[in-house]
């Protein structure tokens, strides 16, 4: 079992529904977010291209945030989901510094918070909130070890890349292009 996500940049319109759905599902305080939209523009008018993509924790196989955590609050659960135990976290911020994706934030209640792949939903057989609301259905979530899962199928016949591969983190979110 290895959870991962594929995101089709050909379909994402950058609407931010994933962001607000995550906030309401996970009670993320206003002013903070666990996922966000990135837009990159290249070229010169009128030969211009943009890529829109939704980003979040990459739930890395080789997660620097877990390695650097002094209390063990940052840990990996079944399926490779990187999580933070709030009451073990001392808010030192080492994990925030170590993350090449800037995927973590300091919660106003004093601990570090981040994407959980909505494991509370996944346990019940539901999709993560961001995936479940996306109007373009550009996100595919599931078990990468299962060759027939939605996510495995999504990356089977498409070109894809990961973010900051040079960081050596082995991220588990794949951007289709």
């Amino acid at each position, binding site marked *: 079992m290895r959870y991962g996500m594929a995101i089709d940049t*050909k*379909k994402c*319109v*950058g*609407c*931010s*529904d994933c*962001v*607000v*759905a995550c*906030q*309401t*599902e*996970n*009670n993320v*305080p*206003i*002013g903070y*977010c666990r996922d966000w939209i990135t837009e990159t*523009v290249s*070229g*010169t*008018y*009128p030969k*211009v*291209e*943009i890529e*829109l993509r939704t980003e979040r924790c990459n739930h890395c196989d080789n997660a620097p945030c877990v390695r650097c955590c002094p209390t063990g609050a940052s840990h990996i659960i079944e399926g490779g989901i990187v999580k933070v135990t*709030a009451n073990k976290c001392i808010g030192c911020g080492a994990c925030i510094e170590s993350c090449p994706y800037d995927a973590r934030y300091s*919660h*106003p*209640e004093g601990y570090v918070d981040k994407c*959980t792949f909505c494991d*509370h*939903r996944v346990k*019940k057989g539901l999709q993560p909130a961001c995936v*479940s*609301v*996306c*109007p*373009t*259905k*550009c996100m595919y979530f599931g078990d990468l070890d299962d060759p027939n899962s939605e996510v495995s199928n999504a990356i089977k016949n498409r070109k894809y890349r990961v973010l900051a591969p040079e960081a050596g983190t082995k991220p588990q979110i794949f951007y289709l292009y």
Partner: protein
Amino acid sequence: MSTRRDFIKISALGTGGAALAMSSINLVQGSSIFSNSNSSANRGLNLKRYPTYCEVCFWKCAGWTHVNEEGQIVKIIGNENDPHCYGRLCPRGTGGVGMYNDEDRLQKPLIRENTGGKSSFREASWEEALDLIADKMKEIASKYGPESFALLKHGSPGSHLEHLMRAYGSDTVGEPAYAQCRGPRETGFATTFGSWVGSPEPTDIRDTKCLVLIGSHIGENMHNSQVQEMSDAIDKGATIITVDPRLSTAASKSKYWLPIKPSTDIALLLAWMHVLIYEELYDKDYVRQYAFGFDELKEHVKNMTPEWAYGITTIKPDIIRKTAREMANAAPSVIVHPGRHVVWYGDDTQRERAIAMLNALLGSWGRRGGFYFKEKLKVPKYPQPSYPHPKWSWETLGEKYPLAAMGITNEIIRASIPEEEGEHKVRAWMVGGTNLIKTIPDKPLLEKALQSIEFLVVVDTMPMDIASYADVVLPECTYLERYDGIRSATNREPSIALRMPAVEPKYESKPAWWITKQLGERLGLHDYFNYEEYSEVLDWQLKQLGTSLEEMKKIGVKTFERSSGPLYLSKGEPYEFGTATGKIELYSTELASLGFDPMPVYKSHPEPAAGFYRLIYGRAPMHTFSRTANNPNLYDLRDENNVWVNPKVAKIWGLKAGQEVWLKNQDGVVSSFPIKVRITERIRWDSVYMVHGFGHTNKNLSRAYGRGASDTEMITKVMVDPVMGGTGMRGNFITFITSNPRKGVES
């Protein structure tokens, strides 16, 4: 001269007591949006859900409001059986919870008081506010006739208010959704196919092979089911062709992006028709059977070659040919999308005609992957007497626009100014669910009307800009706290959706149905409001439709079988269109008889002077009009707009990314607030772009006040469509002011 109707900033006016009352409410309720007491693990437990349909925009997606054990709304999720959303709300629908939680909401009725030459608002009881409005309505009716009391409205509250006004005797009703938005396309399509496009548009995007967007930016406008279907079409490999001076999100997903010179679309559309006809790519059988005036059209576009259009549009002839062939290859599974906000240059009905005619040549109307035949369920009217017949109405005021099919707001506004010509004068306004200040162009005219009218009632959930001008402000509760009319809209299959309250209304806010009933009773119109609770009306109507309120509370959405026949034409099927000839009119007999061009003609439009740039505006996916700028969840996603400037232009002006500038238009109007510069290759060098709906002037919108600039404020040149009265707004040009023009001036 001091004006009677000072612009009042609501927040500055509360008495000490009122301010205290507000802050105590904030302590109890306002804190909930920042509260984190629920850990995410408990978030999904023991939630109750109530059906609703969204009111954050006009798409009205059905969903479920989820309420926790403490009675807080925690989330809103789309209804899986709803053809408007297929179970997925857009960011605004998901963020609708912020509309409920917004601590800046109107809380109590407010009444304007003029003392010592100064205007201010004071809080009032519902009793007092309603008595005052009813007395004024009686006074206006006896002095001038009820027709003089106009209604300017939008959305669900608008329907209740319209019922009240019709019962009272006024059909002087208008909504910006017509003359400031989609009116021209309804006329353009009606004169061609004999049918309105309507909402949601019957575009069969999920099965299309080619989607052509003329300035329509699906994905930035989150017309939910269309965005979803466009994504499906991308999956299936459909070709998208986007015509836009800006690289919109949709343009970035297109096989062909045609970065057209603004205001020249009609030339491109005519050239496309030329290619289809002269390369014999049009649907010959379809045109032969269903169309009228093909020979006239063929002659009309004879010289409108791609080479001719190149000089006008800056789109290369081979691209015009290639894209025409792409459409023909996909036909009839092709959609040249009518768009939605189409009031651009004043010849908008004609441009929409050209779009409709192009669809006709491609044979896409009534075909799979083109336009399907929509169907809507008629909701039976709750028993009531028929409305009195007004002596004059919106139709009278819009008479000089022969094909106006709904009230023209701008004409109602004009009729509110005594010095303007016209026999019938409007003396008072009821405004519900629309922020006219950010909707109606030509603000000087609007201001003049606001100064002229004797009485203004504003019904809204939020202290929008327009509320500052009111004599009475009534706080409506949000859609999450009320019943409203049954949502029945056009779709592939007819369906209905229920909206019911998930929680009690916050503060002293009330539903529009209750407000109008209270006013109706005071006006002696009880027979039009013959119920105690609106749920009685709904239950009665739902039972007529073979369901009930009880059932709808459980399912939220109910879909019905079609009764009007198949979605598409079968091959060779005889079909009568709703035009004078019964055919698709390539040559419009109706326009010809009224003295308008029977076929669209390209006419050039004014261009920006040196140092000025055409103002183009549009939408951001997380906001609706100016309605959502203060919504805490949606503000968090985008808190201001930027002015998009091409790097070449930025260089000339020495502009830096993120720099604040003030905008000045061709008439010398300077923006109330500065706006940050976004330097981007996504926009042409002769234009600038900004998202509509920012630059709020009401200080009581604590987040949105002064954030970004208002495009509407910059639109003082209006090119009116002579066919139906739409206000063309894309003929305004702006320049930059780089240092504060109001420095040292008291604001």
